[in-house]
């Protein structure tokens, strides 16, 4: 099929004349090398096409071929543990085909079509099946059971069901008699990346995505099915924070999208995730991870697609009843890809050169997050964690501001915290989470009834500290009354001993929420006890000299994650001992 002839080339954007047959968002093959492209505008004089590969050497007069459908991804067993480019080509197969440099025009299957897997067939001849229903299942990796769903749009009676056994993804599992005749169903589905997959309905998110990161779980939790933004200038630790999310959060499946970021970071994720084991299953983290890599030097149009590719794959697994967390690093690069293409199209720019549709595109992406009733009758969720790389670290720029409107959790990274190597550099005064009230019941049940109370007190002390610091900056800390000095001392324990978390320490990199509660309780216990003494005239410096503040600051390293209850009782007993001793000698 031939649908047009190239008449104009400008970077990743080409024009094809004589192309009336092409429709909007249709996937096309461009030129002799058949580069993959997408129609982004159709006009009387031809179609405008963005090309997902480098256009160097493309000539005027070469042909454009339509594929008859929109840019779609393949959904089938075999995606898990794999690494793809922005348009779902597996990078390992591309390496086999072209060596360590990526060349153009490579066409490789997203998943291995020949590999046989053991299938359990759940549907029986005579059953009535509806779209989205589970008809078979097969272990995809050690941690993920892949459920085969009836494709959207197919309903009817099963006329044939294969026996349990080993099949590859192209082999027919069942046949269904539909209104439009008999349909054979195998394990492969295709879905257009810019269209959300259907679900039975949305639900309010009531469960947190537990990350084991104290500042997130305790202060600014993200709900399963929620959306969170992590903005921060360069060097503030966006990627590190996101890696911690990807490693430790209790989602069933992680989809990590490296969008316009560094190649070495993707290599690092690959290497590290292979080695690390999932704290819940003990299996390799890579067994539950899909990576999508469009590094900053890969074609810009594919960068725009990579985000959609990732979220579409996430929705597919959600439909099986899984909780998925998407890491999008970085959404600013995606927005810049929109800007770059928009500039090549000579569209009228809005704020800072970004196209006027930036905000609707961002909204469209983040709204694909959510907690759903799936078509197969289960619950599944897609959580989106997006980093934002604001220009010059200035949060007033358009991408950060628009992202704030569509995400309910804002984890602001702060340069001065990063300079002092306080990681994660999440600034506790500017960050917020609107999910806090929705999750209260879960925390009461799973972390302890007083969890929210403790949390409120911790935040209060931090807020008081930030107010006091204004005074300290002007007159020094020595002139403050002792009660306020105690607040500063406690806030320091909270900052260093609680908020700061060492990603490279065995016990500290991941901390269960119950232990987080114990830590907060222990710090506040010390605060309350010390306050009693201080109000009765004992100077803070005396309590400090006992070393109890330092000891509690370091408790994060000295309390094992598997048995910590006794350890914290000991810390509180120690506190009592110190306080009692001072009470006797000083009062």
């Amino acid at each position, binding site marked *: 099929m031939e649908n047009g002839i190239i008449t104009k080339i400008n970077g990743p954007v080409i024009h094809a004349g004589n192309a009336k047959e092409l429709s909007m968002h249709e996937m096309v093959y461009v030129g002799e090398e058949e580069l993959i492209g997408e129609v982004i505008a159709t006009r009387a004089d031809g179609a405008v096409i963005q090309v997902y590969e480098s256009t160097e050497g493309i000539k*005027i007069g070469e042909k454009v071929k339509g594929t008859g459908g929109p840019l779609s991804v393949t959904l089938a067993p075999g995606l898990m543990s794999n690494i793809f480019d922005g348009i779902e080509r597996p990078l390992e197969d591309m390496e086999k085909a072209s060596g360590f440099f990526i060349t153009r025009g490579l066409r490789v299957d997203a998943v291995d079509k020949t590999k046989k897997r053991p299938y359990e067939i759940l549907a029986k001849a005579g059953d009535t099946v509806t779209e989205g229903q589970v008809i078979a299942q097969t272990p995809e990796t050690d941690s993920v059971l892949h459920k085969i769903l009836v494709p959207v749009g197919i309903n009817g009676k099963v006329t044939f069901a294969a026996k349990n056994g080993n099949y590859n993804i192209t082999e027919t599992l069942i046949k269904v008699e539909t209104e439009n005749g008999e349909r054979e169903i195998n394990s492969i589905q295709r879905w257009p990346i810019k269209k959300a997959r259907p679900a039975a309905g949305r639900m309010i998110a009531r469960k947190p995505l537990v990350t084991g990161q104290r500042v997130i779980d305790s202060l600014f939790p993200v709900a399963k099915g929620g959306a969170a933004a992590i903005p921060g200038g*360069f*060097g503030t630790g966006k990627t590190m924070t996101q890696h911690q999310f990807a490693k430790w959060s209790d989602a069933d499946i992680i989809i990590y999208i490296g969008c316009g970021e560094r190649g070495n970071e993707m*290599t690092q994720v690959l290497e590290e995730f292979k080695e690390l084991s999932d704290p819940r299953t003990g299996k390799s983290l890579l067994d539950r991870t899909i990576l999508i890599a469009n590094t900053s030097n890969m074609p810009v149009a594919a960068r725009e697609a990579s985000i959609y590719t990732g979220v579409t794959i996430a929705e597919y697994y959600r439909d099986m009843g899984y909780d998925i967390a998407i890491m999008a690093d970085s959404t600013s690069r995606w927005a810049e890809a929109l*800007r770059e293409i928009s500039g090549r199209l000579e569209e009228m720019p809005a704020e800072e050169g970004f196209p006027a549709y930036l905000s609707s595109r961002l909204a469209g992406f983040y709204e694909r997050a959510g907690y759903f009733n799936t078509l197969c009758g289960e619950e599944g969720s897609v959580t989106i964690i997006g980093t934002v790389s604001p220009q010059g670290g200035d949060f007033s720029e358009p991408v950060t501001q628009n992202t704030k409107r569509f995400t309910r959790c804002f984890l602001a990274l702060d*340069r001065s915290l990063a300079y002092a190597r306080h990681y994660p550099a999440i600034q506790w005064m500017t960050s917020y989470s609107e999910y806090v009230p929705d999750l209260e019941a879960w925390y009461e049940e799973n972390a302890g009834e007083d969890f929210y109370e403790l949390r409120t007190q911790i935040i209060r002390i931090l807020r008081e500290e930030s107010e006091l610091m204004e005074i300290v900056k002007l007159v020094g800390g020595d002139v403050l009354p002792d009660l306020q000095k105690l607040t500063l001392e406690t806030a320091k324990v909270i900052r260093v001993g609680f908020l700061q978390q060492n990603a490279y320490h065995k016990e500290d990199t991941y901390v269960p929420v119950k232990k987080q509660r114990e830590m907060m309780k222990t710090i506040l216990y010390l605060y309350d006890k010390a306050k009693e003494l201080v109000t009765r005239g004992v100077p803070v410096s005396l309590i400090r000299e006992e070393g109890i503040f330092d000891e509690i600051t370091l408790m994060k390293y000295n309390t094992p994650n598997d048995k910590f209850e006794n350890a914290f009782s000991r810390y509180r007993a120690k506190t009592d001992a110190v306080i009692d001793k001072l009470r006797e000698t000083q009062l």
Partner: protein
Amino acid sequence: MPIEYTKLSNIDGPLMVVEGVSGVGYNEIVEINVSDTETKTGQITAIDGDRAVVQVFEGTGDISLINTKVRPTGHPMRLNLSEEILGRVFSGVGKPIDGLGDIYTEESWAVDGSPINPVSREYPRSFIQTGISAIDVLATLIRGQKLPVFSGNGLPHDVLAAQIVRQAKITGADSGNFGIVFAAMGVKYDVADYFRRSFEESGVLSHVTMFLNLVDDPVVERIITPRAALTAAEYLAFKKGMHMLVVLTDMTAYAEALREISSSKNEIPSRKGFPGYLYSDLASLYERAGMVRGAEGSVTQIPILSMPNDDITHPIPDLTGYITEGQIVLERSINQSGIYPPINVLPSLSRLMKDGIGKGYTREDHPALSNQLFASYAKVSDVRALASVIGEDELSETDKKYLVFGREFENKFVNQDRNENRSIEDSLELGWSLLSILPREELDRLDPEVLKQHYKAQ
């Protein structure tokens, strides 16, 4: 007889429009014959129907609408490569300018390069000792890293870069497989000559390939210069197994050249007039650092950029910082205090150091020490701010110790001689002796065990 086009319809700045073309490719190189006496080179940057926009590398001087013939070459910009390029000097577009003749070889690579497949990359882990304490301890350079120097006009970034190149000890590299590619973009003759002399004095000139686009050379060539340099480095690293150090200076001049050409093409500008694709364009250069599995060599990049008006939020340093794996920031006020190298350690950072230091790489206590030095030095700026308000005398005892620590840190640790080459052990010990100025309980980033081993109370 190859096709020649003679119909020009427009000449504007470095660009000219050729009419009636067919079968030419995007980014293809053309040869331009002016009045049968002069030959120039150009590149096709946009094609619309039978009109092609050609960017002329040597400038459009002498070209008129009637005296010029344009001949497509059928391929994009290429560079001839062999091991002979070591010790040679090329123009910004890769033509020999040292009078030693052309490079004769079968090997010719497209200068635009291709992206390295992320799964083929090898994660960089080998420490490069530069002999400069502030870099080795706090922003460690790793083989295969891209670590830019953010500087300002009048700061000694050239001296620092030359010192790094001179002193760098790369694991696995010896005089046989170590090479340097130096690319000058829009710098003055003196700067290029300074580097040449510095290479000569340290006896490595025969291992250096230079690409020079000086400040008075054509702006359009400047776009090719870093690409040619990186292509040479990739060839030597991945084909010949050499460990390459690439110095690119000055990235600001490069980005400004990009802006100049973009604006003459009437493209829609984004921040400060720079084109919207500045990020992608810079990334296509910086991402060409690294190591790949199955090839011996490595490409380590040290780009130098002068921050306009010392502003780190200016688009060029800003976008660079988002792509590179850290940065070394030079600061004017530190330079004015007579400290060399004037590195401001707080915003300086090496993203790869966490995996390339510590046990088995440098020394076990290195990560903890660098963390604590950062934390303590960050506190110094708070104390200094307070001291400027209430006066040093009013400070608490602890705060006074911070002031002493800050001064010693800058004068003994950061400060060193232009030829001083400190071993990593010496630098680490120096760090510990500085931390010992502070009271033990202030060192809250350290494991008690580490502290016991290294803290020497005074």
